[in-house]
């Protein structure tokens, strides 16, 4: 594990701007810092730039200006060959789930461990435990097209946390589940955070924010406002 710069925290953004092609700036002068082990929500209306900010953080996009430092290193200086190793330290829950339809729920959840070269016999119990935790034991051998929206969301969350990431980024992770399950999932995020994972959750769900009592980063028209 690379040492985290003391002054940078785990995540640090300085005057980050982002635009797609020649379009308007989606993110403007975004600056914030997250210490290792912290828990934050990212809120804001639809189109405020929450998903784009998360995409910058899981290295699917490059900023058009400004500086992003992850795990104490400037992402602009990352060699492409090192990206996979960095991504294994980040767990991501996508808003649109992005499960692979040709793999079972079990294989989808196990995917990050499989691509990291781990043997199935070594991760089988961990995956089944996690599936049980998110209430998907019965669906372990089912394929995503037959899962409900809530089940897909839980499978996506399980896939994001199975590798015990140092940083967890979640885009509307409770958007498709009932309040009881939303609380259960929040509990899972809090547990992970307690074990040392830094968590950033983008959400519209005010109740979820109130329950967690965690600091909020609020995005409005691409600009960050502290709350």
């Amino acid at each position, binding site marked *: 594990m690379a040492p985290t710069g003391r002054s940078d925290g785990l995540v640090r953004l300085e005057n980050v701007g982002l635009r797609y092609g020649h379009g308007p700036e989606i993110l403007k002068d975004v600056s914030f810092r997250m210490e290792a082990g912290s828990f934050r929500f990212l809120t804001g209306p639809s189109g405020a730039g929450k998903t784009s900010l998360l995409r910058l953080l899981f290295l699917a996009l490059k900023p058009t200006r400004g500086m992003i430092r992850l795990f104490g290193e400037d992402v602009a200086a990352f060699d*492409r060959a090192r990206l996979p190793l960095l991504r294994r330290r980040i767990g991501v829950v996508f808003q649109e789930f*992005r499960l*692979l339809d*040709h*793999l*079972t729920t079990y*294989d989808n959840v196990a*995917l990050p461990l499989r*691509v990291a070269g781990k043997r199935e016999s070594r991760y089988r119990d961990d995956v*089944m435990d996690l599936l049980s935790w998110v209430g998907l034991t019965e669906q372990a051998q089912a394929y995503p097209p037959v899962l409900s929206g809530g089940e897909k969301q839980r499978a996506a969350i399980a896939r994001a946390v199975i590798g015990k990431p140092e940083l967890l980024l979640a885009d509307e992770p409770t958007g498709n589940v009932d309040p009881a399950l939303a609380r259960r999932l929040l509990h899972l995020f809090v547990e992970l955070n307690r074990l040392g994972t830094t968590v950033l959750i983008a959400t519209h769900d005010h109740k979820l924010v109130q329950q967690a009592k965690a600091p909020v980063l609020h995005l409005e028209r691409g600009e960050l406002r502290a709350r």
Partner: protein
Amino acid sequence: MKGHRPGPVIPARAGSLRSLTVTMAVMCYLACLAIGALILINRAIESWTGGLAREVTVQVRQLRDADIQAELEKAEQLLQSFPGVAGTAILDRDAGAKLLEPWLGNRNLDDLPVPRLIRVTVNTEAPPDYTSLAAALESEVKGASLDTHRRWQAELTRMARALSLLSYAVLFLICVSAIAIVIFATRTVLDANRPVVDVLHLVGAKDGYISRQIDGRFLKTGLWAGLIGVMLGLITFLLLGLTGPEGAGGVADASRSLLFSAPEIAIWSYSVLLMVPIAATLISLITSRVTLIRMLKDVR
């Protein structure tokens, strides 16, 4: 969950390689035909060069004031005493007439001054000095001339070498086309699986891992296509071998000699033909791997 076998990371259905298998099999079949042609041409060159180098011919023309039989004997004596000559045989008048049959038909040639021929076997290790032999014959035997077949040999060899070069060019073009279609198929497979590849990247898969998931299928495709191509090639040579009677020469005999020659020669022919599936597999595997790694580098 015990004994669970994880499904393939890249779905087999998206971006099927069936049309690539068919095209590669056709390429391999054409390669087999080109290789077969090369083997036959090389054998023909060897046999022509060997046969023509072992023998020369002395022709004695009938001159008005000469006794041709006496001149023939004089020529034979001269030849037998010349260093480098291993043996001589005077062809009788009928044998000479027979050689003219294709041009003159089997008419009675008694009235025509048909030249007589002496077949001369030479010592291939220490061949005679043809220039002095020709000079000696011309000065001592009336109407004699020496034919070393060199002009024929040179022309036949030149033609065979041209055909041989053409076969190499065909093989080269087949390789280039095979590489091009594998590149095209690799792009198609990667494009068809782009969403899967994106997810694999985002969960931390390395380019090498992703390309290994895909190029295993190209390895199988190359091997299958190569084996199908070779089988079709062998069936073609077998069918060509059945098209004419034994000893009739031409394509039928040549095809038979390719398949059923002496074991030491047949092993060599079959080994060269079996190089086709090996080459197809390597071309398929290496080209797809290089293309995948290059394409994946453009994906963040």
